[in-house]
């Protein structure tokens, strides 16, 4: 790791109040400043990679709230991730990590095949039986958590059912390439359909290349840099083969990754251009505010918004989603306290660090309760999964939906 990235930290502490794990513990070792110090001292030979050391650094959510707050441009979350990546490269992945993060998740076809039994299991009503018998509890804790997270799956992944080209409704303004995230396709297909409908209504022809691969974020989590580069160059070439005005995604995690392709491929021209053409759906819709407003009808709902880390901290997008919600006539928008604090879903964190994930999540739920909102809007599948589950337990009357679903609701109202 580049030593200068570590000494750039001037230990000012500005990041501390933004770090979810520090707010829960008040421990310097669980703060961004402390994590940078730990990794630095390891490099300087003042600390060794003890079990405790790994425990401290692995408590980091990699939510990057610290990076948004740091005056010096230090990204503690990324530094910790980089360290863990290097350390894992030496030690190797656990079998489970290897299977899930390298062999399964980055390959849409395999992932779809693997989740098919789940869909069947939900469809046949087995779900009810398994749940009521408490069989889930018999699974090892981790697997139980994973299953408990899954909402009802759509009948088929959207990637299989959507047509490659959706024409513009009315006069065509341009062509958007739609990067359909794996989890969006598998689980939140309705939200992605809403995304396509919104784009088409606003006059865009939407191209959803069927051959697209996973964005590569799981490869990064699985410390598989080669896999990441492969995905980046494949997707760059694929989208480049269509004549597109821009590339849009409704998955915060994918967006953050796609915008880094240029960096991943060491500044290669094509990848840099691709990254520059990537927009989060909220950026596109915000630029079309006027046209969109004309199509929205009143929705008298109390709504709040949770900032996904991958949207607010990684892409710096905060005002656009709020402005879009407020475009809807009659909406009662209520700002969520600590709106940009991580909900605790963060990749596989939920499974690896259940106790901290629960603490961070219950703080989020309490904040949602304070707003009195009926709808919690967000725009990242990880957050949707995590928040849907938590609120269905704590506050079942609050519905959790994607930003594009809310806008579609208003359009069809």
């Amino acid at each position, binding site marked *: 790791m580049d030593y200068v990235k570590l000494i750039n930290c*001037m230990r*000012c502490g500005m990041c501390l109040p933004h770090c979810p794990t520090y707010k829960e513990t008040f421990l310097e070792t669980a703060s961004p400043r402390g994590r940078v*110090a730990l990794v630095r001292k390891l490099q300087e030979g003042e600390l060794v990679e*003890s079990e*405790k*050391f790994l425990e401290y650094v692995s408590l980091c959510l990699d939510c990057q709230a610290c990076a948004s707050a740091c*005056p010096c441009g230090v990204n503690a979350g990324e530094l910790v991730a980089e360290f863990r990546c290097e350390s894992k490269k030496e030690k190797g992945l656990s079998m489970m990590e290897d299977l899930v993060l390298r062999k399964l998740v980055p390959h849409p076809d395999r992932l779809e095949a693997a989740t098919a039994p789940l869909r069947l299991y939900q469809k046949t009503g087995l779900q009810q039986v398994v749940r009521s018998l408490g069989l889930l509890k018999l699974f090892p804790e981790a697997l139980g958590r994973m299953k408990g997270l899954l909402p009802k799956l759509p009948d088929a992944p959207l990637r299989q059912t959507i047509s490659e080209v959706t024409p513009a409704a009315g006069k065509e303004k341009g062509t958007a390439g739609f990067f359909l995230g794996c989890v969006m396709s598998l689980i939140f297909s309705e939200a992605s359909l809403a995304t396509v409908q919104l784009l088409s209504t606003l006059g865009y022809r939407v191209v959803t290349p069927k051959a697209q691969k996973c964005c590569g974020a799981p490869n990064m989590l699985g410390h598989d840099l080669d896999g990441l580069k492969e995905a980046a160059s494949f997707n760059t070439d694929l989208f480049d083969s269509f004549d597109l005005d821009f590339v849009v995604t409704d998955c915060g995690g994918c967006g953050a990754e796609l915008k880094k392709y240029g960096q991943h491929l060491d500044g290669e021209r094509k990848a840099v251009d691709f990254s520059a053409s990537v927009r989060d759906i909220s950026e596109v819709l915000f630029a079309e505010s006027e046209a969109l407003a004309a199509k929205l009808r009143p929705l008298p709902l109390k709504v709040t918004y949770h900032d996904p880390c991958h949207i607010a901290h990684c892409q710096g997008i905060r005002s656009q989603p709020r402005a879009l919600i407020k475009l809807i006539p009659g909406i009662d928008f209520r700002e969520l306290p600590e709106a940009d604090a991580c909900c605790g879903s963060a990749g596989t964190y939920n499974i690896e660090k259940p106790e901290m994930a629960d603490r961070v999540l219950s703080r989020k739920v309490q904040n949602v309760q304070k707003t009195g909102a009926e709808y919690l809007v967000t725009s990242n599948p990880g957050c949707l999964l995590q928040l849907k589950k938590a609120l269905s337990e704590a506050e079942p009357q609050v519905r959790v939906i994607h930003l594009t679903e809310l806008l579609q609701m208003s359009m069809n109202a």
Partner: protein
Amino acid sequence: MENSFIKALAGIVGAPNTLIDPESLACYGYDSTPELQSRPGAVLLPGSAEEISKVMALCHEAGVRVTPRGSGTNLSGGSISFDAGVVLQTSRLNRILEIDEENLTATVETGVITSALHREVEAKGLFYPPDPGSMNISTMGGNVAENSGGLRGLKYGVTDDYVMGLKTVLADGDLLKTGGKVVKDVAGYNLNQLLVSSEGTLGIFTEITVKLIPKPVAKKTMLVHFPQLEQAALTVSHIIAARIIPATLEFLDRVTIKCVEDYAHVGLPLDVDAVLLIEVDGHPAQVEEDAAGIRQICERHHCSFFQTAAGPEEALKLATARRVALSALARMRPTTILEDATVPRSCIAPMVKLIQDTARKYDLLIGTFGHAGDGNLHPTCLTDERNSDEIARAHQAFGEIFEATIAMGGTITGEHGVGVAKKKYLPKLVGESGLRVMRGIKGALDPKGILNPGKIFSLTSD
């Protein structure tokens, strides 16, 4: 530190709140002060005043040294234990106990974050003015111990002006209550004020009662460019001479302006010597009148640009340059040394000139910004801790800057405290008798010298 002693400490605060693993000790070996670090022997996170009192009684008996710590954001090494003693972090004492709207006071535990108090009182239409740049993370206890100032200091004063009462654990574990909610109090020595800015050397605060004032109803923000430094400095003096006291009167020098523009592209011209950010607040009519007066004075001193914010959003925009000053500077080089030399207002221009000349002489990059209204400047040296030669030159330069500050009738620190970082300059400032009195006070309250020893001054003259 012996095992049995650590066990006894853990018996008081609980095992999870007693840290002795090397990772924790390493992380509690620093604060925001550049270059300084030293691992403590143990870190404690007590949960109540009673626990702190018991810890102190135990440490007193054993002669173990204790360094209080809030969030560890001070810039003078004050919260570092240099002799492997106990670091006692107060963050678990974080309740706002009362906001008394009849007496206009707030009572908080020591670990309450400054901006959390702001939010709470402002929701009730009240105002707690001290707003250090670190307010989103600094603790109230740290603010009192350092007598912290902030952007609103010119009109509203510093932490000291608001402390009405304290509950303090003394070195031997005894509890001391000073002051309270009464506005007037002449019963005995003014111990409150003695304890403010004691940097953790006289006692550990557990509870703090502060004065609140009504929130000003109106505010106006102005941004002004000056091609010439002297004119900006004269403007500052003439505004005050015209009996206008802005809430904020902040200054950026040429180096800072360039860094801010490179970083944030806010549209600052690169050919001006100084930028002033001015904010007036109070009654709407008064605010209008003050703003008009300020405009006249600025124009008389040949400002090249004067902008008044139309609303709160634009005000925020105008304030951006000042808000991002530190970030913009800190990104230039790996190591940032932030100082706070303070001179009488009338000496701002010569002081800034001197800093710039000194930077040139020692071939350093120093940007200066700060609270021009109260003469409190932050010359910020951008360097690289790996370059020992440059670091040595930086220390030489600051040595000269502090000498000049004292010669101008100023002080070596306006708000960051002495700690260990500025200890060597203190004798020059306060003289032998000053030191003798301070040592006498320290000896009376902490005869064994276990509370944050070696901070501000050495216990013995050497």
